[in-house]
């Protein structure tokens, strides 16, 4: 994480024990007892045990775990729908756990927007009135809230549906309303509790993509709960993995996949299709040899022979990508006695970013023998991905994990690609 990113929410030692007399359970937790053992001894359910993590401003932090792992209890502690039993929740540096009722309401009204698994839309209100709800609670004037509700509905692509009722909308559309309702109050933090889990898979994928697109526009801090690892890997800038009320690992998708902190995480991620998270930067070849725009065909040809390549990427002196030259074209140019390579330069395959998932590269490389150049944000060449490097990268990542199901799916992909 770059240094300029600031911490939005810092969670320290957060513990939630359900029940009126949590003292015994807290003592047992301190001794390192498990959730199950504590339940057997005291009859108390531990929701969250001693959680420590930061939510960085502007990121999507995914809290992931199976049902009963405590992820829903955790997200409800963040706005104190669940009253934390112990620990601190520092929102913009201020601990919100000791706040009185009035102040808590103020924090909920101004800082948080929440989206629920089963949408939780108000059936007696129109779509517009649903979206206005948070503003109405804040005591916002009628015109102003109508205006803001309309903007929020536009953001989720539902303009024109203001006067419909929730019952008339499909699940996906209802959840857009849920999202608009949360966005309407312009909160700092969006809490999304299994927000897409009740949607069918195709709609879910759409919503995930739209959330990422929306996030890049509105730059909210998002805490997203899910039990679906694929969803976590797709959405999460960083992932918090929970099991039995405790946090197992916090890290980026790649960190969790390539470096599981516990055997549990390892088993968990064994299920993942690696191609979803392996990125172009992991399988590309560094651009050791390049052609500069001012090079002549003869120089270029020699560079190719030295490296045993059939092509070279053409770059400016500052390494910005211009195109590609093939060996046969260079040879022809030499024969014709040309002095410049600009006439034989081809645009080549569309360049990709270093974070492009490998899955997307297969399609790109299936139809051509040309390499796919990898460029950074400024368009500077970082490397190239060719079919061979792609398959090699895959084979290596599978070899390090040695899991039957992943190698099966990888073989399948290798076959389609070859």
């Amino acid at each position, binding site marked *: 994480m770059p240094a300029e990113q600031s911490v939005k929410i810092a969670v320290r030692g957060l513990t939630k024990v359900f029940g009126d007399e949590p003292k015994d359970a807290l003592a047992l937790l301190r001794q390192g007892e498990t959730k199950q053992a504590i339940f057997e001894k005291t009859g108390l359910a531990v929701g969250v045990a001693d959680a420590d993590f930061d939510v960085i401003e502007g990121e999507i932090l995914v809290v992931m775990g199976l049902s009963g792992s405590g992820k829903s209890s955790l997200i409800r502690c963040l706005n104190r729908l669940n009253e934390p039993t112990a620990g601190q929740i520092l929102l913009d540096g201020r601990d919100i756990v000791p706040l009185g009722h009035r102040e808590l*309401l103020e924090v909920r009204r101004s800082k948080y927007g929440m989206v629920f698994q089963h949408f939780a839309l108000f059936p007696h209100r129109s779509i517009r009135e649903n979206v206005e709800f948070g503003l109405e609670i804040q005591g916002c004037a009628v015109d102003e809230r109508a205006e803001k509700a309309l903007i929020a509905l536009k953001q989720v692509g539902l303009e024109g549906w203001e006067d419909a009722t929730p019952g008339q909308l499909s699940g996906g559309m209802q959840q857009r309303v849920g999202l608009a309702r949360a966005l309407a109050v312009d909160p700092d933090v969006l809490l999304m509790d299994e927000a897409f889990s009740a949607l069918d898979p195709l709609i879910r994928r759409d919503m995930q993509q739209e959330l990422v697109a929306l996030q890049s526009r509105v730059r909210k801090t998002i805490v997203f709960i899910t039990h679906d690892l694929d969803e976590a890997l797709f959405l999460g800038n960083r992932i918090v993995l929970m099991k039995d009320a405790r946090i197992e690992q916090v890290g980026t998708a790649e960190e969790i996949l390539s470096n599981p902190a516990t055997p549990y995480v390892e088993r968990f991620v064994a299920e993942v299709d690696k191609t979803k998270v392996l990125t172009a930067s992991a399988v590309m070849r560094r651009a050791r040899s390049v052609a500069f725009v001012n090079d002549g065909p003869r120089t270029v040809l020699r560079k190719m022979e030295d490296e045993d390549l059939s092509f070279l990427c053409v770059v400016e002196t500052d390494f910005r990508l211009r195109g590609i030259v093939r060996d046969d074209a260079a040879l022809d140019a030499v024969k014709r006695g040309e002095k410049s390579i600009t006439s034989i330069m081809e645009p080549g395959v569309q360049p990709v970013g270093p974070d492009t998932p490998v899955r997307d590269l297969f399609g790109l490389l299936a139809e051509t023998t040309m390499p796919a150049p990898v460029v950074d944000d400024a368009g500077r060449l970082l490397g190239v991905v060719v079919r061979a490097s792609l398959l090699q990268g895959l084979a290596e990542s599978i070899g390090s994990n040695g899991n039957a199901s992943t190698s099966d799916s990888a073989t399948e992909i290798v076959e389609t690609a070859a």
Partner: protein
Amino acid sequence: MIEIPRLPLAEWIDDGLDVLTGQFAGATKVVSDLMETGIEGTVDALMWLPPGVTIVLAGLLVWRLTGIRTALFALAGLALLWNLGLWEATLQTLVMVLIATLIAVSVGGPLGILAALSPSAYRIIFPVLDFMQTMPAFVYLIPAIPFFGLGPVAAIFSTVIFAMPPAIRLTTLGIRQVPADLVEAADAFGATRRQKLWKVQLPLAVPTIMAGINQTIMLALSMVVIAAMIGAQGLGGEVWRAIQRNEAGMGFEAGIAVVILAMLLDRITQGIGRRGKDQPST
């Protein structure tokens, strides 16, 4: 053999009631007089229009509130009552029922809300409701007399006690069965208790509360008829006279009038309840 003395429960209750009447009878008699004037005034006002006009107006109102079929039934039923010479008695009964229902709902509604939101209020209120509902209805008539004297106000008083429980019960039920995730959503947006109640819980409880009001009206109607024994007028009075004179035909005429009135009130309140329910639902 040891003689176990009889527990003087009746004496205790009488003593208690004596104290209460001693303290409050003056005030309750004033209330009684005012209310009796009010009831008579309302009935007179309704009688001022020719029955034919009132019946047509009532038919139109029913049409607006429910549908054409109930409206036609209302016209035919009310015309029959007029024809049987029971028009004034019907209006008296109707006014007593409506007043009793109004009081029962305006007292029972808040109690129902209280019981829904506060577990300790629930623990106090609900056993009292069980007591109120299982006590034979006639018993309420007896203490009503020393407070309000013979007549319609005493009848309304015992009717309110008899008819209030469903208003309380179904208000509580309606609020409690609002889905938890909707209440949680309101909480998440920082709603106060009052905002939650008015913007989420009560609107969603309306169909159930309407069912409670419907029940209250039906119970009020049956009690107002029984209350003829302590001098309430109306259709109950007709039935009571028929019993004393042993005239079965006359009794049935009044009885049928009660049935017609009951069916009308039932359809109308159900119609209003359904209209509330037809609006947005998931």
